[in-house]
């Protein structure tokens, strides 16, 4: 087994509802959905964010889309216009979750290496 960052296996989008951020995580390869489901437990995600999430973490499954949806309660400093955070609408909690390290079989680690990142030498 190897430890890799989630960004290799999934893309994500996040948004807000009051003081709750949601992060939808989508497997690049539907075959890796089960792996994500096993590793990205609510407890593991709560531990990953640490003090950034003051409330509970809820998880919902969307197997048809190869996606998991997380609700991070108490993550936005009060939310809306109350929040003093730069990311008051939780727009980049998505990439915050993609930093998380997960355990994957060695062949999955090898076949997904570099995925999710701009290729070397690329310019706009």
């Amino acid at each position, binding site marked *: 087994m190897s430890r890799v960052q989630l960004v290799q296996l999934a*893309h*994500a*989008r*996040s*948004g*807000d*509802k*009051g*003081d709750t951020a*949601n992060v*939808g995580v*989508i497997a*690049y390869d539907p075959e890796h959905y089960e792996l994500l489901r096993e590793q990205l437990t609510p407890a593991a995600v709560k531990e*990953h*964010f*640490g*003090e*950034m999430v003051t409330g509970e973490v809820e998880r*919902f*499954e*969307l*197997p*048809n*889309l*190869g*996606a998991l*949806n997380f*609700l991070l309660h108490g993550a936005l*400093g*009060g*939310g*809306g*216009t*109350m929040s*003093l*955070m*730069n*990311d008051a609408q939780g727009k*980049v909690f*998505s*990439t*915050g979750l993609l*930093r998380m390290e997960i355990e994957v079989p060695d062949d999955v680690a090898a076949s997904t290496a570099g995925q*999710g990142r*701009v*290729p070397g030498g*690329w310019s*706009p």
Partner: protein
Amino acid sequence: MSEGRVVRIASGQGFWGDDIEAPVRQVEGGGIDYLMLDYLAEVTMSIMQKQRARNPDAGYARDFVELMERIFPRCVEDGVRVVTNSGGVNPNGCAEALVEAGRRAGVGGRAKVGLVHGDDLMERLDELLQAGHELANMETGAPLSEIRDQVQSANAYIGAAPIVDALKLGADVVVTGRSTDTALTYAPLIHEFGWSPDDHDRIAAGVVAGHINECGAQCTGGNCLINWWEIPDMAAVGFPIVEVSEDGSFVVTKHEGSGGRVTRASVAEQIVYEMGDPTDYITPDVVADFTSIHLDDLGNDRVRVHGMKGGPRTDFLKVSIAYSSGWKATGTLTYSWPDAAAKARSADRILRERLDRLGLHFDEIRTELVGWDSTHGTLAGEPPADLPEVQLRVGVRSSDRASVERFTREIAPLVLTGPPSVTGFAGGRPRVQEIMAYWPALIRREAVESELRVEVRDV
């Protein structure tokens, strides 16, 4: 794929402030039946309420009227009908301005404007409370009486029925207040296909189409994480068009030759955006189950969406209440190498000590280092001493306006009275902002629906 008639609904605006050329491109690109324009967010209603308090003719999205002056003739010629919640807290004012704009644009006598009102509960608030509608906070359970005096706006999220009525009466443009974002897309579908209110699966399909449409280019390549560097011609990004069949299944696409990209992944990212419990997506007309969605990538910027399931609507409508809840301000300064983060943190400590000595009162003081931890917080770890630069960002919040005002005068002095190698203060003092807090509540639907009104006016 299902055969037969297809209704094409284009999205032209994902929020108040979105690309103002997008709806023009959608209409000039041709081949569409409806144009939906979403202007409202939770905070937008309270901004519009403030504008109306200063000027009784204001309180709606004025850009919409300017837009219609440009596209009204083409819409009338092509038979493109427009559905929008641009009315904000003054749909009547918006409709009046629209009629005038239509005449200036030369469609006088050739078009009708539909107006939906009655979602605004601000004037009825005390009457509703007295009648036993508690309007308790959905998240905390607290009764509205706790903040009654601070309320700035109160609007019920309304569904498809009044929009469908306006379309039946022949409106070419339907202007509403706080219609749900998704209803702007599925109301025309109910009108065109005659779906019954009990046809939960098809209306749920319309809700999914609305959810994909409502954020504009966010499903056609905008803010798309997957291989974003490969997405072509974002400068001329195409906004979404949903091509819906009678059975509710639809294809998400965009105009040929426009920029951006529609793939299974770009659509999936938008589906999970601002998602709660996906099995329980509540709207005024149906409860949709987003776990039932199937996506097929057809290639050439076409994604088929099908299989949607839904359940009956609830007895309640959601009410969006905004109330003033104090003041805030945010100040920034930029520190350079060497030891940029150490300098910024030292400045923060000095600033906080001065605020303390001045005896000011804050409910919260928050410090972030832009360029290090303002996006990923503690996940960023400790900044290296060789960080080239960092921006100190300090925000304060207080019920005492004077404390926040005084804070805004304490940032610039740090340039001469704090740690070295600091710049980036040319923007002047930070601005004091009034905080509009959000109070979500539920109300029995008949209390709102009995007051909804639909009018149609000739241009």
